[in-house]
């Protein structure tokens, strides 16, 4: 039974991990907590529901969800980063929160506040591994998360854009002096963040077969916790943090009941912030969060 909980926790954690990667990437490069990401997660999930309900094949639904996530994220970039660069450090955070409220309520107006049931295009496939049930869609989700982060890691380490990103993470002003086009590289950060969260929304909608205008909040708060647990600014740390949070969540439900989950998960976050603020793996794969 405990093995099953562990597997469930890891599967849940893989969704948190993708969201945490998006958060940690924006923090690592721009030192900015992008609160519009829960909105993009929700847009990804709701579009998946909408497309699948309309009978669209799932790869098209995936493409739609992820593309919209990326485009909306670029819109957010215009208003949070470009327009108010240097306007005081709360301002981008505040505007990104406003975008979350905007996205949630627009979707609410369009499709109502009900929890929608997502029609999954394939039979629920699962296999047994030594008495433990492993669901295939969730396994694919975990693989997607790891593969996406591996690609991001490659890009950061070996491409020109990646070098630019790492320079900005180090010091944006110096990066400008060195000829890195900050204003052309920053949208990439938002684009990647949007793509990752929308992908997470798609996977969540498929795995748990539900979507609602507020589905992003809970997951994003867990994603933020995962980011801190793994180490802010560290993309591999975000994966580890996501898995840790997922496992802590399933085990605290198992032992203490569903109502006690928040106490344990956020208690862990609180403890990490005080005893090891650099997280389990330490900040630093991209650059350190310096605030």
């Amino acid at each position, binding site marked *: 039974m405990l093995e099953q909980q562990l597997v469930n926790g890891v599967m849940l954690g893989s969704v948190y991990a993708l969201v945490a990667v998006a958060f940690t990437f924006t923090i690592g490069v721009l030192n900015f*907590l992008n609160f519009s990401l829960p909105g993009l997660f929700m847009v990804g999930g709701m579009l998946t529901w909408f497309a699948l309900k309309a009978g669209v094949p799932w790869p098209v639904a995936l493409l739609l969800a992820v593309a919209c996530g990326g485009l909306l994220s670029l819109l957010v970039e215009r208003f949070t980063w470009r327009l108010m660069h240097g306007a*005081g450090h709360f301002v981008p955070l505040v505007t990104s929160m*406003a975008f979350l409220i905007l996205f949630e309520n*627009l979707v609410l107006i369009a499709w109502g506040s009900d929890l929608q049931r997502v029609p999954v295009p394939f039979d629920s496939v699962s296999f047994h591994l030594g008495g433990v049930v492993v669901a295939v869609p969730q396994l694919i989700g975990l693989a997607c998360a790891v593969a996406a982060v591996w690609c991001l890691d490659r890009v950061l380490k070996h491409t020109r854009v990646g070098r630019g990103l790492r320079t900005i993470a180090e010091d944006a002003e110096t990066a400008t002096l060195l000829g890195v086009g900050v204003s052309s590289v920053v949208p990439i950060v938002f684009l990647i963040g949007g793509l990752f969260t929308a992908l997470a929304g798609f996977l969540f909608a498929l795995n748990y077969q539900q979507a609602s205008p507020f589905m992003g909040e809970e997951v994003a708060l867990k994603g933020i916790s995962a980011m801190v647990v793994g180490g802010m600014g560290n993309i591999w740390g975000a994966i580890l943090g996501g898995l840790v949070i997922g496992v802590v969540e399933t085990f605290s439900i198992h032992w203490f009941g569903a109502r006690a989950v928040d106490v344990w998960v956020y208690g862990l*976050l609180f403890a990490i912030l005080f005893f090891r603020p650099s997280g389990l793996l330490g900040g630093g794969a991209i650059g350190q969060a310096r605030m």
Partner: protein
Amino acid sequence: MSGYLEGVLVLLAINVILAYGAFLPIVAGQLNLGVAAFVAIGAYCAAWLSNTWGWHPLAAAFAATLAAGLFGWLVAFPILRTRGIYLALATFAFGQVVQGVILNLNVVGGASGYPVQAHVGFTAIACAAVLVFVLVFLLFQTRFGISVTAVSDDERAADLMGLPMRGLQSAAFTLGAGLAGLAGALYAHHFNYIEVQNYGALFSIYVVLYVLLGGTQTVYGPILGAAVFTLLPELLRGSAAWRYVIFALLIIAIMSLRPKGLVTGELVRRLLGWRTTGARA
């Protein structure tokens, strides 16, 4: 006065108190995303005192203010060890933990909410809001106010000038927590029912948003922010979703055009016809 108008004004008064609860830590450079926790502590504490022990609701509200302030003071020590984003996240985590704990406290109803018997009317709440404004206004005329403003303008410079940073920041955090607790206590006794599910992270975010919308450079900003946030929905009656859409668009527009908030020090000086120095644009 009609019941409807009274209800709106009560909400306005409570939101003004709340706004100052979030304003004080923000001025001292701390983004408190755990305001909701202190509201919940104040609301539940006051409700419990008046329900179980038969306290007069105003006495209970006063005690709840002290209790929330005490909590704020206690958590200020660990929380102020962190800075910037880490501090915002620590307050957020604290808020989530408090919400989770109250959800499991069956003595105050747990997940099913907590009815409150005693009632506090409009007059008392309006007086409390005015009192809070006057106190904050006076506070900002003192050396404390000037010091806190210095901290918000340039933390490093303030530190170098020998200001007691730690003391100022924990005082601002504690006072803010106390005010949030007062707002919670008054809400509980006016609406006679509280539910901890409402005091989540999004609640804190809304409070912080309307304070920043109003502007944090002067003591007048939070009032305007609270007024816009409370009255705008009433002007746009009908769909709750649309008013949040418009609220969000307003914030995006205002933060784009006036990133320091609606009311700035410069604006107040110009309105009052004082000589502008341009030092704090």
